[in-house]
Each structure stands twice: as structure tokens, then as C-alpha cells.
């Protein structure tokens, strides 16, 4: 029985001012509607332009659950297509990345397409003469996604033809991407390796929420970060230098007061970040030569400004988190209502010392890998939530921490760093983007 399809009101009713109904995490119908409405209405991260360095380079990805294919055309332009042959629907590319040469060729019947998606050739073409083929969608080649924006190398796409513009959607939140790119003395990032992939048996939104949840590290990660701090204290002997590993683990155990003062900044459309005044990434050891490179590239004042902005986690609604200070992007890819694939990418700062890339890779495997003890702590909590939310005793999830009665949605504000307001911000946006192309159905039904 369908409770939510075509019923914008019932979906909006799942999000109260400071609570959300458990169905947003556990109901398969809601998940289906997210794929049908939320993801196509949103600007979703597809990949990085450095993965498409040369003509013919391609990557595959998903937007929601839609398989897509991005390619670099001979004129340098980047195009994104639905990853299926217009003939029988066979996926054109099945590898995560590669170079297809001058054209894509479907492996089933050898239909071929230029790297801008247009139809190049079909074997025995004359068999289509006089059949009306020229008037079909298939004759246009690979179905192209029209709304694509590449912002400082980051490729985003919106599946729906109409909707909120890229600029209005992200607004000032792009400042986190700016800061990450500016950390390269050449102002360039590059992807040089595959991401760490980690399968989560929980709803994708639990992961997104956790990115700005500053009241869990000292509790849930006592087992990992807390043990790391304890073991180091015991084993350090007369060592005066804190190993990079301990520098990365240690700050997770910062007290509530630290997170309170470090602050959270929220932006319209569900974006926001932790670590405004400072963050858990603020006190890493300097990497020799890097500051000098930055000063040479940007000047003294600007270099310090860039490196002084040490944000913690920035959520790009709906399903991406960026850490500028360690050049990591986590993509929370929805697979099913209770299954999420997390791909954690590390970008290399072009022109910066290798030590920074080494640190970013270390951070990624400590925190975001299936072999990561911090990851084990988090996944255990998500799995328990996915199970616990089946309970009918209380069907609401409480997001009321530091809620003010006069709280306004869709504003820019800097607030106490232990607030759950960014989660409320996300769910306000969730309801909006779930239903923005649904209203006409409701009116039609009335």
C-alpha cells in the first residue's frame, strides 16, 4: 500500500520543527521517492575534472541510483550521460574509469557514439532506412544530462531539467571547496588514486547527519581515539615528537567545550559545516617548506588567511561531505533504504609537499576505511539505529538540541558547535526537495 507516493503533505509531515519520523530512515517507499524526487532535484557530486584529464577519458558514477557516465570530449568539454545504450539499454561503460579513445562502442551490437554522446555509427545502418529511426530518441545518441556545472574542478549535475540553479543551490557554501583548492600553491587539486570504499548497512542520511554531530566523538570514539591517546601516553617514553598518527586520532577526544566554541555555520538549502573558529584539524604539525610555497604563491597575508581557515566537516546537501584541511571528500551513495556505499576520495594538492598527501591518505584510512577503528565505532551506532528505529514505541528521532522557538530555515548563521541545527537544516531541505516537483500531483488529486 502506498502511503507517500504523490502525497506531498504526508511527506512534509515527517519533518517537524525539531523531530523527524523514523520512516525517513527505514521506509522503502520513502527511499524510492528520494531516488525519484530528492536526488533529481538536487545538485549531486559526480567526480573531479582531473579524472577526465585527456580527451576520451571517462568515469562512471551514480546520481541517486541512476547510472551515469561522464566523458571528456575532443574539444575539451565535459559531458554527462545516462550510462545506457539507446538500443537495448546495455551499460556503455562498466569500469569506474578509463579512456575510450575517440568514441564509445556498445559491446552488444557495436553501436558507437562520439565522446559528446552523439550517435556515430550503427552496423548495417541501411536496415534502419525508412523505419522512422531518424525521429526516435535513439537517433540522438546517449541521453545527455543537461544541467552540469564544474566548479573549480568539482563536477556536479542536476538530473531534473528545471529546478534551483547551481549558484542559488550552493551559495556561499562553495567557500569550503574554494579553501580546499586554494591550499594548493598552484590552485589545483588532482585525483591520483581510487577512493576507499566502505559498505554500510544503514540509511545514507545517518552518515550525513553524523558529519556535524559533535556530541558523539568523545563518546562513540572513546574506544578508538581514546585508546590511541592512552596507549601513546604509556608508550611514548622520552619521545618529544607526537607521531602523525596520534596527531590525527587525539583531537577526536576533545571535550564538549572545545566543540561548543569551535562553532557551526549553516547555509540555506541544507549545507553547513562544523569547525568555524577552529577544529580538530587545527593543530597538526607544520609540513616543512609548505608555508613558504604558499607565501610565494599567494603573498603573506592571503597565505595565512587560507591556512588559517581550518574547517572540520562541510556537508553539501544531499550526500557529500568535504574536509578541506585534509583534502577528503566522502560520497554517501544510496543503494537501498538500509544500504549505503561510502566512497572516500583524497585529492592531492598540486605543487605541495608529499607529506600533506601522506597525511591525507593516513587520515582517510584511519577514519573512513572498512579496516578503520573509528569507522567501526560509527558503523556500529548506525546499524544499531537502523535496528532500533523499527521500534514502534516512539517513532520520532529527536533533533532538539539548542533549538530556539524563533529559529528560521534557510538562513546563514554561526551558532554553538554542539547544536543539532545543521541536522534540522538538512531535514527542512529534505522535505523541500522531496516535494518541490510533487505539488502539482497533489492538486491534481484534490
Amino acid at each position, binding site marked *: 500500500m502506498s502511503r507517500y507516493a504523490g502525497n506531498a503533505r504526508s511527506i512534509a509531515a515527517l519533518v517537524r520543527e525539531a523531530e523527524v519520523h523514523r520512516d525517513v530512515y527505514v521506509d522503502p517507499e520513502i527511499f524510492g521517492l528520494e531516488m525519484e524526487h530528492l536526488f533529481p532535484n538536487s545538485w549531486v557530486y559526480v567526480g573531479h575534472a582531473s579524472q577526465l584529464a585527456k580527451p576520451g577519458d571517462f568515469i562512471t558514477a551514480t546520481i541517486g541510483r541512476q547510472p551515469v557516465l561522464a566523458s571528456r570530449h575532443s574539444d575539451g568539454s565535459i559531458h554527462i550521460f545516462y550510462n545506457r545504450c539507446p538500443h537495448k539499454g546495455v551499460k556503455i561503460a562498466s569500469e569506474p574509469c578509463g579512456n575510450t579513445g575517440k568514441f564509445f562502442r556498445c559491446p552488444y551490437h557495436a553501436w558507437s557514439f562520439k565522446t559528446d554522446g552523439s550517435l556515430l555509427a550503427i552496423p548495417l545502418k541501411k536496415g534502419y532506412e525508412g523505419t522512422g529511426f531518424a525521429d526516435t530518441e535513439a537517433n540522438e545518441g546517449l541521453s545527455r544530462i543537461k544541467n552540469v556545472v564544474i566548479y573549480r574542478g568539482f563536477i556536479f549535475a542536476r538530473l531534473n531539467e528545471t529546478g534551483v540553479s547551481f549558484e542559488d543551490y550552493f551559495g556561499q557554501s562553495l567557500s569550503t571547496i574554494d579553501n580546499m583548492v586554494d591550499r594548493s600553491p598552484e590552485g589545483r587539486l588532482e585525483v591520483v*588514486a*581510487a*577512493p*576507499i*570504499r*566502505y*559498505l*554500510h*548497512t544503514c540509511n545514507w542520511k545517518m552518515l550525513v547527519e553524523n558529519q556535524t554531530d559533535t556530541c558523539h566523538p568523545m563518546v*562513540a570514539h*572513546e*574506544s*578508538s581515539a*581514546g*585508546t*590511541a591517546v*592512552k*596507549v*601513546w601516553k604509556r*608508550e611514548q617514553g622520552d619521545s618529544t615528537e607526537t*607521531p602523525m*598518527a596520534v596527531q590525527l586520532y587525539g583531537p577526536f577526544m576533545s571535550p564538549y567545550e572545545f566543540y561548543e566554541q569551535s562553532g557551526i555555520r549553516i547555509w540555506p538549502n541544507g549545507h553547513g559545516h562544523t569547525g568555524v573558529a577552529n577544529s580538530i584539524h587545527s593543530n597538526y604539525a607544520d609540513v616543512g617548506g609548505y608555508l613558504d610555497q604558499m607565501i610565494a604563491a599567494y603573498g603573506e597575508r592571503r597565505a595565512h588567511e587560507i591556512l588559517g581557515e581550518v574547517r572540520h566537516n562541510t556537508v553539501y546537501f544531499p550526500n557529500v561531505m568535504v574536509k578541506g584541511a585534509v583534502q577528503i571528500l566522502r560520497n554517501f551513495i544510496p543503494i537501498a533504504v538500509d544500504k549505503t*556505499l*561510502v*566512497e572516500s576520495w*583524497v585529492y592531492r594538492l598540486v605543487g605541495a609537499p*608529499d607529506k600533506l*598527501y*601522506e597525511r591525507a*591518505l593516513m587520515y*582517510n*584510512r584511519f577514519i573512513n*576505511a*572498512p*579496516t578503520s*577503528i573509528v*569507522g*567501526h*565505532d560509527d*558503523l*556500529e*551506532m548506525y546499524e*544499531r539505529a537502523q535496528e532500533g528505529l523499527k521500534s514502534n514505541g516512539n517513532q520520532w528521532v529527536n533533533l532538539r538540541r539548542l533549538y530556539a522557538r524563533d529559529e528560521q530555515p534557510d538562513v546563514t548563521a554561526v551558532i554553538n558547535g554542539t547544536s543539532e541545527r545543521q541536522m534540522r537544516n538538512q531535514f527542512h531541505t529534505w522535505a523541500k526537495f522531496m516535494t518541490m516537483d510533487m505539488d502539482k500531483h497533489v492538486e491534481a488529486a484534490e
Partner: protein
Amino acid sequence: MIDEKAVTDFIYREAELLDTMQWQSWLDLFHPEGRYWMPLEWQQQDPVLQPSLMYEDLLLLKVRVERLAGERTFSQKPKSRCHHLLQAPQIVACDTAAGVFKARTSYIYTETRGDMLERYSGWASHDFVQVGDALKIKLKRVDLINFDAPFGNIQLFM
């Protein structure tokens, strides 16, 4: 005198220690400068500037072992158990004069927790150093056949 049988026996003994959860005895098999490495690329060369699943020194391995027993380690309630099924190790080098001892062992590894059971296949490469009469692990490298697939939690040691 360390011969090929000593190398093989060491590898069987290591698997036994892991399967019986004698974590401290397992840590004692490592040289103080030893490393445990799980690459994330096929025939990966560099553990530092290429991404890995794990590349840990003894300090970090101690953290893992101590965490497993922690009162607030909720991902170990209930506890995980593991099983190593090893093929006979292939001796790559056994040269007492040069102090070089290397072996490669094909394995199937099973990790279980509660009602979940996961299987992994791959190769373990051991690089030993001789300390007194004994071998110590300089590098244990664990290559999974599907290193590039997304896994759930892997909490113990392959």
C-alpha cells in the same frame, strides 16, 4: 639455524594465535619496527603515497588489540572471531647468511560476529628478520583478491 620449516611453522603458529585470540602473543611476533600492510591496489609498491586499507606500526597494532578488549568498544559487543585456512606457505627466500626470510601464503580468511559471517581470499606475504634464534615479522603484507570492493567492518587481523 633457521630453515624453511622454521619459516613455515612460524606462519602456522601466527594463524593459530590469531584464531585463538591470543593477541598479545601475536604482537610479540613483530619486530619493534615491524609493519602490517593491507594494500588497496594491485601489486602496490608504496604504502605511504598510495592509499592502503591499513599500514600500521606496532603502536597502532597495540591500539587495535587494546581496543578489542575495551569496556566501551561497542562494535565488539558481541565479539568477533576469526579463522585462517592457509595453503602451505611458499618459501620465497630463506638465506641465513644474508638474513633474508620471505614467504607467501595463499589463504581463505573468515571473520564472524553475531549472526554475520564474511569470507575473504588473498595472499599473505611475510618478510622476516632474525633476532637471536628467532624470527620476527618485519612486514606482513595482506593482499585481498578484491581489495577494490567495498567491505563492511573488518575488525580482526588477516
